[in-house]
């Protein structure tokens, strides 16, 4: 694909549009919350309107007419909601959510111009239909003793705000106050500040009395549900007279008092006093820079190269020491090399930090998923998030989104019970899905916990046996953890009986594979009947790894240091064999062993010694011992991915340069553990070199 200027501006548009949509989703959630509490939030509606309007303009500019048309339809709907011409119902909200989702979908079909233009006509029609069905209710303003001239002076928006408050049952007051002309601006700011925490200042209108002694009378319309006494005391220092706007009594309809309008030098209109909230916001410059992740990858590569240079320098330094060179020069060289090393480590950390983003980016999207799912299934579910500020590498954040959505779906679909069932069990009717993220060493842990029906080990055992994943006999020897782990085995979820248990297992094998691909692990724990918790453990960064370097038959390999429990030297004769497997009795605990030379089909002569090195790995709560030839030490390495051509090579993810142009491979410990240990695995390498 040629990257011309058109592609670049398209990329830019897509990036900006993405950001806008994220903000829109966030605002919609706020609105949703407000609607449930019966409290329509004017500001949020305005923000939504502005956002959609900007999106409309942007997409029109770049020629994405379908997106622009959808934006236009949503803009119309938002305008109606803003002006109170349409009620903010659950259905109206659904339409908005649906619309924003549609944006995402339309934008996701990149590279396919026809996709971006495929406009959901039916959707737009629904919006129009909703517009027609607006309740032509009685105008509540008629029920109150407002002065018609005052009402006429209000903008449509202000009228709507008045109605909204009256419908809610708030009280509207008129604050009549005379202000010196020179004081007006600062006085109004002061008034807004006083009122902000307790009331909404709807409008400020010219009063009925003429100007005298350089003062102007103004009438402020205030709406609030704060008790009158509190309002009065707040306004005490400000001055003026406060009147309540009362409901008209049915019998007497007093004619409105005549208003005498005195032309002012500078007419005080509602518009010049209050900023027009319908004004479109100019893009606010921020202190942020948008960077292509490719550029960060290149930076990381350069840091890696420097790392290799540094290792070579260290080697050279060692060699110099052995040769007959002025010791002072040697010392200098070593100091320089160490200083270089320190600066390099700092730079590496800096680059890593630049690549990190807070997990909130991902979690925000999940809230929408929960809301939609809950509505779909008519369940009450809330999403609680903690630790959203935890940061991970951008790529990790991107790749963890899908598995998380999957787990959340799983939790709402199969975990959280229906309202009735929860009531019967004595649980709160509102189900909770709790996402909790925190750092643990060089990892980030994300827990997804629901307070639903939990998982029953007996049911899993039964389902696993019935779907042929494991034999009845085998299940008896499994620990509780291993039974839960069966949910992740491919084949478990394809059980013909679609019960809630196997429903729980649907697609979990895919989740595990995807999490594995970003170097993480996933496990599940549960209290039957009470809760289920999925625990994802992810590396904070994929770019740099603290690794243990070792070799087997001259082939260099590395394994993440975080997974290494210990390294032991054993006598060859200590290895025992049973049922085709090898194991070691390590301080009273059985450690299954794996000969890497067999597993990786490596050739070469074994070292002629009786002592063998065993690297004890701890992977997903299980231990595995790797039999290797030599241990070379610990090192920070920059991991480079292998090409597509080598994707089929199992147990190896990526390569790293150790300093002399030779590459070492990164062992995929989790895949290895699964190949050797898992219940459903076939034992292909039962000892002996092929």
């Amino acid at each position: 694909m040629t990257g011309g200027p058109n592609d670049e501006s398209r990329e830019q548009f897509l990036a900006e549009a993405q950001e806008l949509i994220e903000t829109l989703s966030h605002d919609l959630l706020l609105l949703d919350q407000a609607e449930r509490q019966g409290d329509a939030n004017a500001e949020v509606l305005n923000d939504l309107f502005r956002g959609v309007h900007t999106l409309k303009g942007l997409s029109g500019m770049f020629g994405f007419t379908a997106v622009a048309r959808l934006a236009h339809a949503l803009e119309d709907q938002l305008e109606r909601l803003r002006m109170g011409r349409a009620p903010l119902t659950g259905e109206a909200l659904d339409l908005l959510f649906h619309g924003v989702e549609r944006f995402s979908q339309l934008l996701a079909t990149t590279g396919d111009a026809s996709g971006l233009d495929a406009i959901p006509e039916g959707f737009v029609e629904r919006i129009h239909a909703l517009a027609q069905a607006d309740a032509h209710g009685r105008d509540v303003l008629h029920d109150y003793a407002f002065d018609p001239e005052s009402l006429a002076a209000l903008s449509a928006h202000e009228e709507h705000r008045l109605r909204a408050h009256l419908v809610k049952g708030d009280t509207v007051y008129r604050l009549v106050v005379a202000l010196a002309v020179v004081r007006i601006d600062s006085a109004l700011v002061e008034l807004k500040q006083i009122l902000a925490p307790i009331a909404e200042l709807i409008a400020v209108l010219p009063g009925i009395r003429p100007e005298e002694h350089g003062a102007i009378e103004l009438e402020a319309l205030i709406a609030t549900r704060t008790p009158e006494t509190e309002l009065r005391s707040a306004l005490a220092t400000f001055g003026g007279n406060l009147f309540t706007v009362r409901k008209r009594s049915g019998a007497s309809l007093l004619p409105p008092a005549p208003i005498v309008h005195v032309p002012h030098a500078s007419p005080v209109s509602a518009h010049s006093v209050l900023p027009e909230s319908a004004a479109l916001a100019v893009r606010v410059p921020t202190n942020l820079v948008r960077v292509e992740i490719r550029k960060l990858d290149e930076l990381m590569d350069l840091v890696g190269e420097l790392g290799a240079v540094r290792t070579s320098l260290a080697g050279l330094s060692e060699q110099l020491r052995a040769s007959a060179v002025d010791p002072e020069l040697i010392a200098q060289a070593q100091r320089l090399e160490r200083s270089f090393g320190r600066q390099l480590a700092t730079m590496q950390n800096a680059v890593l930090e630049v690549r990190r983003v807070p997990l909130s980016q991902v979690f925000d999207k999940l809230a929408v998923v929960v809301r939609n799912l809950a509505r779909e299934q008519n369940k009450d579910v809330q999403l609680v998030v903690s630790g959203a500020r935890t940061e991970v590498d951008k790529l990790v954040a991107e790749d963890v989104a899908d598995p998380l959505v999957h787990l959340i779906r799983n939790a709402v679909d199969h975990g959280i019970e229906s309202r009735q069932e929860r009531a019967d069990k004595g649980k709160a009717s509102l189900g909770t899905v709790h996402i909790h993220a925190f750092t643990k060493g060089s990892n980030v842990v994300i827990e997804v916990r629901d307070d639903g029906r939990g998982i029953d080990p007996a049911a899993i055992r039964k389902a696993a046996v019935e779907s042929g994943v494991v034999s009845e006999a085998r299940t008896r020897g499994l620990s509780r953890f291993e039974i839960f782990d069966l949910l992740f085995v491919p084949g478990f979820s394809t059980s013909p009986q679609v019960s809630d248990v196997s429903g729980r297992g649907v697609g979990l094998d895919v989740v595990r594979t995807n999490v594995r691909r970003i170097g993480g692990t996933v496990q599940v724990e549960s209290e039957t009947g009470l809760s289920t918790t999925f625990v994802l453990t992810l590396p904070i960064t994929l770019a740099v790894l603290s690794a243990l370097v070792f070799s087997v038959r001259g082939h260099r390999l590395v394994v993440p240091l975080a997974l290494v429990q210990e390294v032991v030297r054993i006598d060859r004769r200590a290895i025992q064999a049973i049922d085709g497997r090898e194991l070691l009795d390590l301080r009273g605990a059985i450690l299954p062993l794996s000969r890497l030379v067999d597993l990786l089909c490596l050739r070469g002569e074994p070292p002629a010694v009786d002592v063998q090195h065993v690297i004890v790995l701890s992977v997903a709560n299980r231990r595995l011992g790797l039999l290797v030839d030599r241990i070379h030490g610990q090192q920070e390495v920059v991991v480079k991915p292998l090409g597509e051509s080598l994707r089929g090579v199992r147990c190896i993810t990526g390569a790293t340069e150790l300093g002399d142009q030779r590459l070492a491979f990164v062992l995929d410990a989790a895949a290895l553990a699964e190949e050797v240990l898992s219940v459903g695995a076939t034992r292909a390498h039962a000892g002996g070199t092929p």
Partner: protein
Amino acid sequence: MSNPQHSVDRPAANAQTPAVHELLAFDVASTHYALPIACVRGVVRLPPVTEVPRSPERVLGVIKVRGQVTTLIDLRRLLRLPHAPPLATARVLLVEHGSEVLGLLVDAVLRIHRLKHDEIEPASVLGSDAPIYLTGIGRVQAPMPPPGGIRGTASRGSAIGLLLLLDPDRLLGTQ
């Protein structure tokens, strides 16, 4: 030269000037082959090769080229030629294939030829069982004589040599 399996993102040099083909000629097992210059990203000396455990047969290993870990393919195996250790003149052709750049190990890199359409005979001249990765046979003037002379289809002692034109996608696409 027709390439019905042109992948969309390969720069279509052929589409621009079908009349003239620009080819990079190289030597493998004393036979001259060529690839369209447009698909060759670069040529480098052979760096140290690291074997990849459990890799497909045709993969010699990986090499580090321009900061990237690049898979090195044994062209001899793809062309079904006997194995031989690399020569001093050995080079790696960096060829784009799909989403990555692969390295093809050759015995020597020769030169660039510009061939007119009528200087290329279609592969079918060899019969219907010609290998599918062969797209044609070119006729070139005075190629550099490799050690051992040109095998097979050349006339002795003449200044005209033959060039076997390869299609990289077909060559690399099949396992």
